[in-house]
């Protein structure tokens, strides 16, 4: 084996020498033979001639020698390559069409795959991620990963199974700097975090068990992104402190750029030990009466299986849950706390994945179909061209060019096309991913994903490029080398086309079918977005600016907060362009807010959701500003804000129905668990508004005056109804807020439309991308059909000419070509509708307001495709009908 490789390598890299030596050797042979013959008595010239004759055809023998050395294959390949390149240059239109189709098809696949890689496939950037497990609980597909600190301590006591167990919970900090106060994302972690996970560090160190000791000198590890953003990667940062939530914090380390956190799409700026959290929340480490978003992650000891490790974890979990002080945890939802479970942590955890996993798979399916359509197009184009080359093929086969050799030649061409397409696809993908990421920008929190092509994505692209190159090349390669030589060499090739064309027609029908699938998916997703956007959400959208103010972790004392917010409200009301303004804890179509358990006469269910109402402390102007209609009773007035005032509430319709049934709710009282003595009187009923998102029906809602909230909220949102474009007053609002108190942080500023759009990011991404893919599919399909039909007409022009000469009417010719198109289109449409019915089943969780088999949508798509197909077929048909019979018969 080795010697062969060496001899082949020698051959390839010292080609000249090989050829020279071969020449020398052969001439030595012939001369030696000639000398021998001369010695036998022949005259020298005759001896030379005889020697040459005996030796045989020198070139053929040399060629055999080359083949013996395995060189011929390379020679042929490079010949094929040159030939293919020449062919590509000769037909630039064809080449451009093929390469572009493939580039778009492969590029779309690469883009979606890169996204999928970043969200779903990529493993965590820590040491041996496959050994990591999240500690969860419950049955079913998605065990919950919540816990509290005492439970974490129990798990840590388990012996022999884990190399280490650590815990973290996401948070946010207020960073005070010369630029003012800003929000940074954060993570509370146990001191073992960096050690257990093996987080790579750029400079400094991670935390250690010392970090768990109570301290008054807090430390932090910052991310590379934060280091770059705030400090320009200055290494002296390790000697510096930053002010977080009003406390001075020493930076002890910076994580490596590759580490982007445990949750795909988020990358905490600052990581601090949970011990620091205990400074402000002393009971956090010990209390059993809260259940938190603390996530526990463990590293299995080498050789310990997850199943083996789960047994003692389950014992500890059940023991913990059975203890008297913890029994309350499982009360609302027993099966969620029935047993302990592990969730593999190698790819991190994440909302993003849950949200987008299926969506990405749907998109992946769509781009795969688009690529298939593109490949079929190129296959068809090649088939058409190979038909034109039938004579050349026949000649080559006659002179002994083997079929395998010809197939290789065809494959070289298709692979070359695929290669060009693949290279261009990387550009398309680059552009595509950034376009897709910009669609995500509407989301509330920026998505921090590295979608630059990873080695895996590049390998994926290379694989599909190769696979498509072979797949679409093989059909024409086999079809066109299956030539019956005699008729092909005569001009009777035409006869054979009837059969060959049928495969081409079948391919076009398949394209139409596939396009229908893509189009149906796109139409369903598009209509879903439309349906969601046209929901009457119960308030007036339009010129409404939302400004979320935050005072948590600022020097503003708790008791002064509401007054401060009020001051801001009064200040912004006077701004020019502001028509109405109000304050509220929550705003519509936003995943924030509180559901509180109600005191019910008789609890109907154990589940908290069934007994709770969504609460929203507001200022009196809220309903008027939002345009929420009052149905009965009254809204709040300034008297309700007084400390001594009777506690009142306005409820929405759903709550009124829940609380009062058919009776009049005005004057009834309600109370919340936790403060049952506080009887709140219902004074009004307003219409329902959608709260969390547009898919969830409006929740039962209780509005209360913000002034007498039990606990003054640290953050409120300002609603500003403006006369014109709300963006225009953004700067003035910022100024006004700063004017009241420089410590107030503006967490977000956005219009209600932006907020609604943020809640529809997934829908918009799906609808936009699928519409793009559908357009691509449709265009490719129309081009394919047009190309094939034009070619049919061209090949049949002689036959058509004869028929016209014999008296066939032009209309009849037109009809004939069109009817052929129609048969193809109808066949494709039927296949497509059936396939679409099956494919759209995967969509049911995404759709809104229509079924996945919505007859109008699928029917509409089918009709649209039929129309487009007929339009694509009309041009060639018209050409056939306007043929000049004389001309057509004359030209061969």
């Amino acid at each position: 084996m080795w010697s062969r490789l060496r001899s082949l390598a020698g051959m390839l890299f010292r080609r000249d020498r090989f050829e020279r030596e071969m020449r020398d050797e052969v001439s030595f042979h012939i001369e030696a033979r000639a000398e021998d013959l001369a010695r036998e008595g022949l005259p020298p010239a005759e001896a030379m001639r005889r020697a040459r004759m005996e030796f045989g055809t020198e070139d053929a023998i040399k060629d055999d020698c080359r083949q013996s050395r395995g060189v011929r294959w390379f020679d042929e390949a490079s010949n094929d390559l040159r030939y293919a390149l020449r062919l590509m240059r000769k037909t630039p239109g064809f080449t451009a069409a093929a390469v572009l189709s493939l580039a778009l098809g492969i590029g779309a696949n690469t883009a979606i795959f890169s996204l999928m890689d970043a969200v779903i496939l990529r493993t965590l950037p820590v040491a041996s991620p496959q050994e990591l497990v999240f500690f969860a609980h419950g049955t079913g597909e998605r065990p919950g990963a919540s816990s509290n600190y005492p439970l974490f301590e129990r798990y840590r006591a388990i012996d022999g199974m884990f190399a280490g167990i650590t815990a973290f919970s996401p948070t946010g900090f207020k960073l005070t700097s010369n630029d003012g106060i800003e929000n940074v994302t954060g993570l509370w972690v146990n001191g073992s975090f960096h050690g257990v996970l093996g987080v790579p560090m750029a400079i400094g160190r991670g935390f250690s068990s010392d970090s768990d000791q109570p301290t008054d000198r807090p430390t932090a590890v910052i991310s590379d992104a934060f280091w770059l953003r705030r400090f320009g990667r200055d290494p002296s940062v390790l000697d510096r402190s930053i002010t977080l939530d009003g406390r001075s914090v020493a930076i002890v380390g910076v994580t490596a750029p590759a580490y982007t956190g445990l949750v795909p799409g988020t990358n905490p700026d600052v990581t601090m030990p949970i011990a620091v959290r205990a400074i402000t929340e002393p009971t956090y480490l010990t209390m059993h009466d809260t259940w938190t978003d603390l996530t526990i992650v463990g590293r299995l000891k080498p050789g310990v299986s997850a199943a083996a490790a789960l047994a003692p974890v389950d014992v500890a979990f059940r023991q913990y849950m059975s203890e008297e002080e913890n029994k309350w945890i499982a009360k609302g939802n027993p099966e969620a706390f029935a047993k302990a479970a592990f969730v593999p942590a190698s790819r991190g955890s994440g909302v993003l994945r849950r949200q987008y996993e299926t969506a990405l798979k749907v998109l992946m399916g769509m781009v795969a179909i688009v690529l298939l359509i593109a490949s079929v197009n190129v296959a068809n184009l090649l088939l058409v061209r190979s038909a034109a080359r039938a004579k050349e093929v026949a000649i080559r086969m006659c002179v002994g060019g083997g079929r395998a050799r010809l197939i290789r030649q065809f494959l070289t061409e298709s692979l070359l096309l695929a290669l060009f397409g693949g290279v261009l696809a990387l550009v398309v993908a680059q552009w595509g991913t950034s376009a897709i990421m910009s669609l995500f920008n509407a989301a509330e929190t920026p998505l921090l994903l590295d979608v630059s092509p990873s080695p895996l994505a590049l390998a994926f692209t290379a694989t599909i490029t190769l696979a498509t190159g072979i797949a679409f090349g093989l059909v024409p390669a086999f079809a066109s080398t299956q030539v019956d030589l005699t008729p092909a060499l005569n001009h009777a090739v035409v006869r054979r086309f009837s059969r060959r064309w049928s495969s081409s027609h079948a391919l076009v029908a398949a394209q139409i079918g596939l396009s229908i699938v893509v189009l149906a998916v796109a139409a369903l997703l598009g209509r879903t977005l439309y349906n969601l956007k046209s929901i009457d959400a119960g308030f007036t959208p339009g010129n409404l600016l939302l400004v979320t103010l935050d005072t948590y972790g600022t020097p503003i004392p708790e008791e002064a907060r509401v007054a401060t917010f009020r001051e801001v409200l009064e200040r912004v009301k006077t701004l020019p362009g502001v028509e109405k303004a109000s304050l509220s804890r929550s705003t519509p179509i936003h995943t924030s807010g509180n559901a509180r358990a109600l005191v019910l006469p008789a609890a109907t269910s154990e589940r908290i959701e069934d007994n709770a109402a969504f609460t929203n402390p507001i200022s009196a102007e809220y309903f008027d500003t939002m345009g929420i209609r009052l149905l009965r009773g009254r809204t709040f007035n300034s008297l309700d804000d007084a400390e001594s005032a009777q506690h009142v509430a306005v409820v929405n319709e759903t709550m009124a129905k829940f609380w009062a049934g058919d009776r009049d709710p005005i004057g009834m009282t309600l109370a919340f668990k936790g403060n049952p003595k506080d009887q709140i009187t219902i004074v009004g009923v307003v219409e329902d508004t959608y709260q969390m998102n547009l898919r969830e029906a409006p929740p039962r809602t209780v509005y209360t005056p913000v002034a007498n909230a039990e606990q003054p909220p640290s953050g409120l949102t300002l609603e500003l109804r403006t006369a014109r474009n709300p963006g225009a007053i953004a700067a003035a609002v910022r100024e006004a807020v700063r004017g009241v108190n420089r410590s107030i942080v503006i967490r977000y500023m956005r219009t209600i439309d932006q907020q609604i759009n943020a809640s529809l990011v997934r829908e918009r991404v799906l609808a936009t991308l699928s519409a793009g893919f559908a357009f691509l599919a449709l265009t490719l399909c129309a081009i394919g059909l047009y190309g094939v039909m034009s070619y049919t007409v061209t090949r049949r022009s002689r036959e058509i000419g004869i028929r016209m000469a014999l008296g066939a009417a032009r209309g009849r010719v037109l009809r004939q070509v069109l009817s052929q198109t129609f048969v193809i289109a109808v066949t494709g449409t039927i296949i497509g509708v059936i396939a679409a019915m099956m494919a759209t089943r995967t969509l049911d969780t995404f759709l809104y307001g229509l079924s996945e088999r919505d007859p109008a949508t699928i029917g509409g798509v089918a009709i649209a495709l039929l129309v487009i197909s007929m339009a694509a077929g009309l041009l060639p048909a018209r050409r056939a009908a306007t043929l000049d019979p004389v001309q057509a018969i004359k030209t061969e």
Partner: protein
Amino acid sequence: MGKTAELLPGTLDMLILKAVSLKPLHGYGVLLRIQQISGEALNVPQGSLYPALYRLEHQGLIAAEWGESENKRKAKFYTVTAAGRRRLREETAEWNKLAAAIGTALNATPDEV
């Protein structure tokens, strides 16, 4: 060249190995040597000699080196390698077995059936 027998397919490689195992030879020498050691009974088609030599060299069964021929000219000399020798031994044994078997079979008489 007199009356010669055609080579059986697959035997050329074996004969080349045998020829160069006796003494390093150039291509033309291999041709002559095969004729000589077969008692002038075998004629190697010149067209297949060189492809066979190149193949054997490619497979590492023979090695080539440039040297000087008997009449002081530059020529490429082939020698057998260790792998070539091993192959020759195997092929010789195979051949002998086959030849004996065919011989026995062809000499069979009606009584032996």
